[in-house]
């Protein structure tokens, strides 16, 4: 019933630093279906950042297969990967990664400028996205005039503006206080309830607790793939 947004089969990622070869991922396989909310967890050095970059089409696997919304990303040029990111993915980063010289609205418009569409339509879509995250009254503020929680909501609006198939959040609560963290997780859970597929890379158990499924990594290998309910029961 649910199609697979992500299909990863035996993905390896080897960084060749010259002197040594670092195996960041050693054969990871899983599917993520449309409408799922998945947490990827693991200690530092476990390969979760590499997995995140791979899922985000910012990096290519050394071996293995990755299908994003049915499209094989192997042998794609950098520009084709950029197109896939623009079309299928929305990013939320720990450091927000907003452009400081642009207003919230322009930051949300940014991914749409790399799509062929009318400027008025872009603006309209960006305004909708900002309303969706509850920042309609902060549209013309610059990031330095916004709180951490507001900045992260602008970033979420930016990722939503393109109607992505998959929302990728990399430690989205890392720079937020506990109240803003709760707000954000509530919002992401709400999005997921409305059908958005969400993947969150985190090391915080209570963030992962909001997700339906947890994938755990250790030393580049997948050590667990379990429903989140079991964590709570442990």
């Amino acid at each position: 019933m649910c199609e697979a947004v992500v299909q990863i089969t035996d993905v390896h990622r080897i960084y060749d630093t010259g002197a040594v070869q670092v195996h960041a991922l050693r054969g990871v396989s899983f599917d993520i279906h449309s409408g799922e909310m998945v947490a990827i967890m693991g200690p530092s050095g476990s390969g979760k950042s590499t997995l995140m970059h791979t899922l985000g089409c910012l990096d290519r696997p050394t071996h293995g297969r990755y299908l994003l919304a049915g499209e094989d990303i192997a042998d794609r040029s950098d520009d084709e990967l950029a197109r896939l990111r623009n079309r299928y993915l929305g990013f939320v980063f720990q450091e927000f990664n907003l452009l400081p010289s642009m207003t919230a609205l322009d930051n949300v418009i940014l991914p749409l400028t790399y799509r062929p569409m009318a400027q008025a339509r872009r603006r309209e879509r960006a305004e909708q996205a900002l309303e969706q995250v509850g920042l309609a009254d902060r549209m013309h503020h610059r990031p330095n005039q916004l709180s951490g929680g507001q900045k992260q909501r602008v970033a979420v609006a930016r990722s939503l503006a393109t109607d992505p198939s998959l929302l990728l959040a990399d430690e989205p609560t890392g720079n937020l206080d506990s109240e803003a963290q709760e707000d954000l997780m509530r919002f992401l859970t709400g999005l997921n309830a409305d059908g958005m597929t969400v993947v969150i890379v985190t090391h915080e158990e209570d963030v992962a607790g909001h997700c339906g499924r947890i994938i755990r990594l250790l030393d580049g290998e997948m050590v667990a793939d379990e429903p989140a309910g079991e964590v709570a029961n442990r």
Partner: protein
Amino acid sequence: MILREGLRAAWMGITGNILRSALTTLGIIIGVAAVITLIGVGQGAQADITQEINRLGTNSILIASRGEYRFSSEDADEIANRVPTVQRAAPVLTTTLALRWGTETHRANAEGAGGSYADIIGLEVEQGRLFDEDDVKNRGRVAVIGSTVADELFAGRSPMGESIHIQGQSFTVIGIMRPQGAAMGQDRDNLIMVPITTLQRTLRTDRISMIYAQGTSSEDIDLATSHIERIFEVLTGRDDSIAVTSQSQILEIVDAITGTLTVMLGAIASISLVVGGIGIMNIMLVSVKERTREIGIRKAVGARRRDILLQFLIESIALSLGGGFLGILSGWGLTALIRFFGLTAIITPSSVLLACGFSAAVGLASGVYPAMQAARLDPIQSLRYE
């Protein structure tokens, strides 16, 4: 739309650091202003000299000896009589002489001339008259002087009718020439003109310096020139005894010289434009480094290589073209200043076009490398960049 975003991003880059952008642009402003001004001065000089030469008439011919052959006044008559395409011809003897009036002395250029010389070169008097064929025939002791000579010797008094002494002989001033100004660094008004026959007797010579001839029309000048050459070839038995130069040939030579001068001035000024371009490249490299994270964000949300490339190219071209525009304005101001101080300087559409084209090219050339660096950046590395 990609272009629109490129323009927007470039504008943000430029206005994000106004002082730095302004200082960077200054290099181009100075370069373009220098190109415009120096080319203007070169072309001004060309126009000045061309005008000076044209004033002598485009159908005049200058005949000079190449060394061994000694001209005489009869040669001028010979040319005037035998060449149908020559209207008239006059011998000229040039030298410099010490002039004395009372206790005042002054050194001036002296020209002994035949009767029709003034007509050939278009000389006019401001006061009095020129000497005529009769004065030449009778070795009249009359002189026409330039304004500098009048000022130096007579200091405000009227020179008309006064006697100027040259090597013990006295000459009566019968006319004062209309001022001609300076040409090629020489004061054309520091001149005294007397009948050639009188000057020859005073200097105890029958020599002449050259012959000025006037063709019947400017179309027949080449015909007249070769005819004159043939006459002297027969007369002397050699083909290199004299040099015949028509006014249009001189014009061509001067054009070639001043043209080279203009190109040289322009080329020297262009060096500063190239230096300005290096400044832009430098700042663009800094800008790419500073905005690594921005590039990472843009790439993460879908910017392709060419989007980033275009953004930085537009930025460097905008800097350079903006500088070019301000440089044209400054160059215009500078040439106005130069004209205010009495020199000729011209801004031509071609020099403005050249400056525009060159500054755009400099912007493109100095932007390519930094923009390629930016486009090549790895998104993951860029997002981590602090």
